[in-house]
C-alpha cells in the first residue's frame, strides 16, 4: 500500500475516532496555558502551549495519533545554518500547535503566482491537541566520520550514543538513527502529518527526512485521567507507566537534572525510539491462557495474574497451588517492572502502527515504542532484562534511534538555544 493510500485510511478513521472519544468522555476543549505539560484534557479541538519549562508532547496526555520524523542534516549545513533551521522550525511549530497555518495567510492568502507557504490540508481543522517535540541525535554532535561540524562535540551528553545491541535486534539502517527528530502528536492524523510535512519542507536543502513513522492508537496513557489503551497484542499497555501527575517521580526518572549535565540539557530528556515489529499472525494462534502467561496480566481487565484489578501492584512472590509463581519468571510484566530493573522507570509514549503488509502477506504491524527518560541507562537496563521475555518470540526490533530532547522553549528563543549559547 502506498503511503498516500495509508494516510487516506488513517485519516478517515481518525477523525471519527477523535470526535467519538471527545464526546464519549465528556472532555471539553480547554486551551489554557495552565495545561502545559500536565493538562488532563485531550479533545479534538484542544491546543497545548508550545512554550514552557519543558517541551510539550512528553507528559502531555498522549494524543491518539503520531507522525514521527528523523532527519539527516545536509553535508553543506554549517552552524549558522543549523541555528537558522531550528529558529524557523520553532516559529512554525509555535504557530502550528495553536491550530494556525505555518505563517499568516500561508495557505491561500498569498500571491497567485507563488506556491502557498502552507500546504493547506489542515485548513479549517482545529489544533487537535498537536504537540511538536524536537530532539538532537548523536550525529549532530559528531558525524559518522568523527567530524565536529557544528562545534558541538564538546557539548555532547556522554550518554547520547547509539544504543547497544539487544536480543531480537534486526535493525535496518534506513529505519534507524537520525541527526534531528520531530515528534508530532495530535488527535487528528491529518494535523500531525501536516506538521511534519511543512517542517520537512522548511528544511529542504538543510535537513532531509531519513525515516518517518505514522502511529495510530496510543499504547500508553501519560495521565491518570486517561484510560489504558491496548496494543496490537490486544493487551492493555502502559498500566504502570509514569504519568503527568507523578510529580517528583518525573524529576527522578524523566527530566534531566542540572546536576546530571550537560547544563544545556537540564529540563530536557532522552528519547528512545524503537520500531518493534510484531509477528501478529503467530501471536493470534497462541492460546488465551498462554498469551496471559507471557504478558503476566489478564487480557480483559489487565490485572496482574497475582490477583486484583488493573492497578493492583503485581505480587511477583505469589505462588499457585503447585508452588509455581503466578506471574511466570519470563512474563513481560515481571521483567519490565522497575522492581526487576534497579528501580528504572520510563515514560512510555508509544503508538500502534500498521504499514501495509510484507512480501509474505503478513501485516507490517507493531509497536512504535517511544520512551522518555532521564538517562538512556534506564531504557538499556529494562531492555536487557527483557532478553528473557517470552514475548520476544513474537517481536522483532527493526528500527532504533536515540535523541537528546532539550528543555522547553521560552518565547523569543529557538528550541535548543542553550546548546549553542
Amino acid at each position, binding site marked *: 500500500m502506498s503511503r498516500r493510500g495509508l494516510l487516506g485510511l488513517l485519516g478517515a478513521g481518525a477523525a471519527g475516532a477523535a470526535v467519538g472519544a471527545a464526546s464519549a468522555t465528556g472532555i471539553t476543549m480547554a486551551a489554557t496555558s495552565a495545561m502545559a505539560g500536565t493538562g488532563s484534557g485531550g479533545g479534538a479541538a484542544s491546543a497545548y502551549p508550545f512554550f514552557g519549562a519543558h517541551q510539550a508532547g512528553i507528559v502531555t496526555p498522549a494524543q491518539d495519533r503520531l507522525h514521527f520524523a528523523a532527519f539527516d542534516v545536509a553535508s553543506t549545513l554549517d552552524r549558522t545554518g543549523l541555528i537558522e533551521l531550528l529558529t524557523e522550525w520553532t516559529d512554525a511549530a509555535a504557530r502550528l500547535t495553536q491550530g494556525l497555518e505555518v505563517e499568516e495567510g500561508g495557505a491561500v492568502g498569498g500571491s497567485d503566482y507563488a506556491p502557498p507557504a502552507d500546504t493547506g490540508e489542515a485548513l479549517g481543522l482545529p489544533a487537535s491537541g498537536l504537540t511538536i517535540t524536537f530532539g538532537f541525535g548523536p550525529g549532530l554532535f559528531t558525524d559518522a566520520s568523527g567530524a565536529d561540524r557544528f562545534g558541538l562535540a564538546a557539548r555532547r551528553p556522554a550518554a547520547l550514543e547509539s544504543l547497544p545491541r539487544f536480543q531480537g535486534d534486526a535493525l535496518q539502517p534506513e529505519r534507524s538513527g537520525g541527526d534531528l527528530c520531530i515528534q508530532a502528536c495530535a488527535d487528528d492524523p491529518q494535523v500531525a502529518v501536516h506538521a511534519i510535512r511543512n517542517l520537512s519542507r522548511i528544511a529542504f536543502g538543510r535537513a532531509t527526512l531519513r525515516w518517518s513513522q505514522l502511529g495510530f492508537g496510543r499504547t500508553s496513557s501519560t495521565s491518570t485521567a486517561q484510560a489504558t489503551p491496548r496494543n496490537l497484542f490486544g493487551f492493555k499497555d502502559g498500566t504502570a507507566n509514569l504519568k503527568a501527575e507523578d510529580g517528583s517521580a518525573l524529576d527522578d526518572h524523566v527530566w534531566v537534572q542540572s546536576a546530571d549535565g550537560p547544563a544545556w540539557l537540564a529540563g530536557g530528556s532522552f528519547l528512545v525510539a524503537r520500531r518493534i515489529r510484531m509477528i501478529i499472525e503467530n501471536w493470534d494462534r497462541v492460546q488465551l*491462557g*498462554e498469551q496471559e502467561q507471557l504478558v503476566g496480566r489478564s487480557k480483559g481487565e489487565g490485572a496482574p495474574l497475582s490477583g486484583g484489578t488493573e492497578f493492583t501492584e503485581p505480587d511477583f512472590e505469589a505462588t499457585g497451588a503447585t508452588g509455581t509463581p503466578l506471574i511466570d519468571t519470563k512474563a513481560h510484566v515481571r521483567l519490565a517492572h522497575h522492581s526487576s530493573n534497579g528501580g528504572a522507570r520510563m515514560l512510555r509514549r508509544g503508538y500502534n502502527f500498521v504499514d501495509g503488509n510484507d512480501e509474505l502477506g503478513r501485516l507490517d504491524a507493531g509497536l512504535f515504542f517511544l520512551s522518555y527518560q532521564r538517562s538512556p541507562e534506564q531504557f538499556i537496563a529494562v531492555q536487557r532484562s527483557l532478553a528473557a521475555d517470552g514475548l520476544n518470540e513474537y517481536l522483532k526490533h527493526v528500527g532504533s534511534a536515540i535523541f537528546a530532547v532539550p528543555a522547553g522553549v521560552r518565547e523569543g528563543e529557538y528550541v535548543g538555544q542553550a546548546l549553542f549559547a
Partner: protein
Amino acid sequence: MFRRALAASAAVTALTLALTGCVAKADLAQAIAVDITDDTCAVATPTASAGAVTFALENHGTDANEFEILADDKLRIVGEKENVTPGQAVQFVAQLEPGTYYTACKFQQVGAPIGLAEFTVTGEASAVSADEQALADQAVEQYVDYVRSQVAELVPAVEAFAAAYAAGDDATARSLFASTRVPYERIEPTAEAFGDLDPQIDFREVDAVADGLEWTGFHRIEKDLWPPAAGELNSDGQDALAGWAPSTPEQRQQFADELVADVTQLHDLVTADDFAVSLADISNGAIALLDEVAAGKITGEEDWWSGGDLSDIAANVQGAGVAFGAVRALAESKGDDGEELATEIDTQFTALEQALAAYGSLEAGFTDYAELTAADTKALSDQVNALAEPLSQLTHTVLGVAEPES
C-alpha cells in the same frame, strides 16, 4: 515444539496400542518370528490380521537391540520392544488396526532404523473403545517413543558430521549438514524445554551475539563450512565478517566436541526414566513447530549460509505431523467438531507437503533457499498459515476443557 509426519498422519487413522507383557500360550503358535542381528531385522511374515499381533523376537547379534513397528510415515512409533539383549528370545504383542506399517530394528538402540520393511495388517478394524485415558496414555507413549527415536538417530548423525568438520573435510561436512539437522528439527521443541541446550545446539549468530553468549552449535559450524565473502551481510543486516573469523583447527575440534556432547546430553535427558510430556505439550508442540517455520525459516534466516531452510522446514512440518498424529484419535473422540478439525488439519498438511515436494525431499535434498522467488516463499508461507490456523485449535479440542493447562 513438536513433531510428526504429515502424510503418515493422514493415512493412519486407526487406533494402535502397543502392549508388552505376558502372552497366552495360544498366541505363541501364531507368533511371527523376528530374527535380529546387528545389521538385519528379518520379519518372517510381512502380513498379519488386525488385532493382537505377536512377534517372537530373537537377538542373534552382539549387542542390545530394539524392535519397532512404525506407522506408514516411517517415523511415528506405534509399538516397540526395547533392550533385547544378545541371545535373548522374547515375545512382543502389538495391537494393530488394518493398515500399512513398517518393521525395523535399532542396533544398540540408537541410530537410524535397520532392516526397514513394510508390514501389512488386514481385516476389520476393531471397535474403538474411546476410553479417553487410554487414548491419552497412548498419545503420550507414542510421542515419547518418537522423541527418543529421533534423538537416537541424531547422535550418530552428529558424530559423523562433527568428525568431518573437525577433520577439515568440508565437502563431506557440507553434504551432511542438512540431513544431520533433520531429526533435531523434528523434535526441536523438546530440546527447547531443556533450557540451555537448544541455544547451545542451534543458536543463530545474531541471537547469540545479542544474548552475549558464546556462539556454538550447528550454525557456528555452518558459517565455517559456507564462509561469507567480504561485503556479505548477516540476516540482521550487519557485516558478516564483523566479529567473526574462520575457526582454527583447535576451535573446530572444540565446536565439534561440544555439539556431540550437547546432543548426547539431550539423548540422556529424553531417555531418562523421568522424561515425560503432557498432552498439551504434544499438541502445543505441533503448532510451535509451525510457528518456527512461520517466524524465521520462511524468511530464510535460519540457515543463512547453507541455504538449507527448506530441509529444516520439511522436518519441522514432519514433526508437527507426528505430534498431530499422536493426539489425533483423542481429537476425533471429541465428536463431530473434533473429526472436522482433524480432517481439515489432514487436508492442510497434505497441501503443505505437496507444496514442499515441489522443491525436493528430505531424502534427495531440497533447493537452496536463495533460489526461491518471492512468489515461491509467499506461496509456502500462505500454506503454512493455512495449516497453522486449524492446528492452533488442536489443544483446545484435545484437552476438551475451557481452561488451558498451564
